[in-house]
C-alpha cells in the first residue's frame, strides 16, 4: 500500500486540464495527461429489458452506438478517444454478457485505430453488485464473487481500463446524509468506505496486472453525487453536499493507495483533489453531462480534467442523429477548446471556467484550484482514512465560511441557519477513529456488519 504524505501538485496554477505528473499509457497508443484533453464518450440502452429474448437487440444498440460515435470522432478529427462501457446490472450478473459487449466495442476501436490512427482506449465499468445483500457482505458471498468475475471477463475480453462505482459504506452514508449527521458522514466515508475501497482495489489491481491493463479509479458517485442531486432537489443544503464532496476524497484516494493509476472515473468530482495528491490523470464531466444529470459544476469541473465526459446518454434519436453521436460532437468541440487553450494560455481558460461557476454555489467552491490544494494539503497531513476525512471536511468548511464572509460565494438564506450549526456539529465529531466507529455502531448498527469491513 502506497501512502501519500505530500502533494504531487502543490501550486494551484499547476493544477490544470490536460497535464498530470503521472501520465497513463493505454489501449491503442493513447497517452493520458500528457498535454491534451480527450473526449470520453458514455452511453447506455434506451428503455429495453435485458434478457435472452432481447439480446440481439441489445447487441445491435451497442454496434449502432459505436458506429455513430466513431464516425463523428473521425469527422471532427479528435486527437484521441476513450469509450466508457458502463455495464448495466444484468451484464455484470451475467459476466459473459458484459464480456461480449466489451469485445464488440474493442473491435470497433481497433478498427478506428487501424483506419485513422486516432489513439483510443476502452474503459469498462463493472457494476458493484455487492450491496444485493442487506446488510452488504462486501468481501464474501456470491455477489462479491460475481463482481470480481465481471472484472476478470471484461479484462479478458479487451478492456483497457477498469473502473467501478463502489458502494461499501453507502448503506450507512445514505442514512447519515438524510439526517445531515456529520459524524455519520465522516465515519461512513472515512472508516467504512475507505476500508472497502482499499480492499476492493487490491483485488482489481491484481486482475489488471495479470492482463497488463490499467486499473483506472473509483468514484464516490453513490455518496457525494447523491448528495449533489438531493441538494439540487432542495432536500439538502448545498453546503452539506459541498462538505460531503470533500469528505469523499480520502475514500476515493484509497483506490490509488492500492494500485489504481488513473484515469479516475468521470463522475468522481473529487477528482481534482486526487490529482493534486496522487498526480494521476482524471476524467471529469460538467455541462457536457447535462444529458445525465444537472449540477452546479458545469464549467468549473473542466478546470483540471484530462478526459472530458458526458457521463451517459441513452441511444435514442435526436433531430441531428443519435444522442450518443450528438454528445460525441459536443465533447469533441469542448476538447478543441481545451487543447487550443493549451497551446496558448491554458491558465486563462481554466480561470474562466472557474470564475464562471464559483460565485453561485459552495459546491463549486470545493473545485476551485486554490481550495482543492488547501483540502488536499490538509488530507496529506493526516494518516488513515478517518482523520483524513475529518480534516477534509474541516478544511472545506473553513473555505466555505471564508468565501461566504468575503462574498465570493452565495449561500442561500434557507441554508445559513444550517451552516451556522456546522461548527457545533464538527466539534462533536470524535478525534479517535474508535469512538467514531462506536458511534456508527450505536446509531446505524442495524445497517452494516463490521465484518464486511474486516473490523
Amino acid at each position, binding site marked *: 500500500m502506497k501512502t501519500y504524505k505530500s502533494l504531487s501538485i502543490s501550486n494551484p496554477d499547476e493544477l490544470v486540464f490536460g497535464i498530470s505528473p503521472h501520465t497513463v499509457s493505454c489501449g491503442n497508443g493513447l497517452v493520458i495527461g500528457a498535454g491534451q484533453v480527450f473526449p470520453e464518450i458514455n452511453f447506455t440502452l434506451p*428503455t429495453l429489458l435485458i434478457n435472452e429474448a432481447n439480446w440481439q437487440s441489445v447487441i445491435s444498440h451497442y454496434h449502432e452506438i459505436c458506429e455513430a460515435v466513431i464516425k463523428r470522432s473521425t469527422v471532427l478529427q479528435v486527437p484521441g478517444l476513450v469509450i466508457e462501457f458502463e455495464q448495466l*446490472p444484468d451484464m455484470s450478473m451475467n459476466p459473459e454478457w458484459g464480456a461480449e459487449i466489451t469485445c464488440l466495442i474493442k473491435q470497433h476501436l481497433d478498427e478506428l485505430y487501424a483506419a485513422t490512427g486516432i489513439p483510443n482506449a476502452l474503459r469498462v465499468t463493472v457494476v458493484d453488485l455487492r450491496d444485493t445483500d442487506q446488510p452488504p457482505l462486501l468481501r464474501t458471498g456470491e455477489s462479491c464473487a460475481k463482481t470480481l468475475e465481471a472484472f476478470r471477463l471484461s479484462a479478458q475480453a479487451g478492456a483497457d481500463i477498469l473502473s467501478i462505482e463502489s458502494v461499501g459504506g453507502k448503506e450507512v452514508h*445514505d442514512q447519515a446524509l*438524510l*439526517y*445531515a449527521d456529520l459524524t455519520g458522514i465522516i465515519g461512513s466515508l472515512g472508516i467504512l468506505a475507505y476500508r472497502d475501497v482499499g480492499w476492493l482495489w487490491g483485488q482489481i489491481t491484481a486482475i489488471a496486472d495479470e492482463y497488463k491493463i490499467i486499473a483506472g479509479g473509483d468514484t464516490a458517485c453513490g455518496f457525494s453525487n*447523491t448528495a449533489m442531486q438531493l441538494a439540487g432537489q432542495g*432536500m439538502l443544503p448545498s453546503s452539506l453536499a459541498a462538505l460531503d464532496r470533500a469528505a469523499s476524497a480520502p475514500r476515493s484516494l484509497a483506490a490509488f493507495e492500492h494500485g489504481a493509476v488513473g484515469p479516475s472515473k468521470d463522475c468522481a468530482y473529487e477528482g481534482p483533489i486526487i490529482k493534486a495528491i496522487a498526480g494521476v490523470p482524471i476524467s471529469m464531466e460538467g455541462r457536457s453531462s447535462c444529458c445525465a444529470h444537472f449540477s452546479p459544476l458545469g464549467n468549473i469541473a473542466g478546470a483540471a480534467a484530462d478526459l472530458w465526459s458526458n457521463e451517459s446518454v441513452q441511444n435514442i434519436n435526436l433531430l441531428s442523429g443519435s444522442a450518443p453521436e450528438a454528445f460525441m460532437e459536443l465533447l469533441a468541440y469542448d476538447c478543441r477548446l481545451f487543447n487550443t487553450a493549451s497551446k496558448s494560455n491554458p491558465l486563462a481558460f481554466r480561470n474562466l471556467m472557474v470564475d464562471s461557476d464559483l460565485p453561485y454555489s459552495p459546491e463549486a467552491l470545493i473545485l476551485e484550484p486554490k481550495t482543492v490544494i488547501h483540502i488536499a494539503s490538509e488530507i496529506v497531513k493526516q494518516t488513515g482514512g478517518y482523520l483524513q476525512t475529518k480534516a477534509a471536511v474541516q478544511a472545506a468548511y473553513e473555505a466555505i465560511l471564508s468565501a461566504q464572509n468575503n462574498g465570493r460565494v452565495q449561500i442561500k438564506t434557507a441554508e445559513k441557519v444550517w451552516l451556522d450549526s456546522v461548527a457545533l456539529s464538527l466539534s462533536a465529531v470524535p478525534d479517535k477513529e474508535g469512538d467514531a466507529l462506536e458511534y456508527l455502531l450505536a446509531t446505524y448498527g442495524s445497517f452494516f456488519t463490521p465484518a464486511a469491513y474486516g473490523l
Partner: protein
Amino acid sequence: MMIHDILAQLTQVVALGKINKNTPLPADMLGQDGASELAFRALEQGITPQAILNDGLLPGMSIIGEKFSRGEAFIANMLISAQAMNAAMEHLKPYFASGEIKSTGTLVLGTVQGDLHDIGKNLVKMILKGDGWEVIDLGTNVSSEAFLNAISSHSDAIVGLSALLTTTMLNMGEVTETLKKHNPETRVYIGGAPVSQSFCQEIGADGYFRDPHSFAKSLRLD
C-alpha cells in the same frame, strides 16, 4: 380552550422537530416538553386519539411539508419532525391496534427487480410515514412474487414501485400485471427518474408521481 391549546402545541413541536424533553434540538427549546410528553398529556386530558392525530400531529407535518416545498427547510427537518410525530404515535399505538382510530392506510413499497437504487424509495417511505401511512418496505431488487406475497397479507394496501434504470423500469409492467391479475382493485403507483406519466399509462399503473410530496398530497385527496 385547553383542548385547542395542547393540540396547537403538539402541532408546533412536530413542525419544529422537538421529539421529547431530552432531545437537544431545537436548541432554544432545551428541557421543554416534546411531542412525546404532550401526546401523553393530551390522552390524559381525555382528548380522543383521532383528534390528537388529525388536529395535533398531522397539521405539524403539513407545516414542515409546506416549508420544505417552499425551499425553506430540508429533508432532515422533515425527518426529525417525522420522528417527533412517531414519538407521539407510540402513545397512540394501542388505540390503533384496538381499531379505535384508523391509520391513513398501508403502502407496500419497493424498488423493482434488478435495481438497487433506494434513496428515492426511502424518501417516499419517510414522507408517507409522516402522513400517517403504515409502510411495508420490501427493499430493493424486489420480485413480482415478493410484491404479490406482501399484498396477499395486506389486501387493502396500495403499492408503490420505484426504479432508476431505463432497463429495470420495464419490470414495473410485470409487477403491475401480476398484481392486477391477482386483484384488479389493487392500486399501483410508480415513481423514479426515468419513469413518466405516459409510461404509467402504457403499463396500466394507477398513477405516476414525480416526488413523494405530490404522491402524499394526491393520496390525501383520495
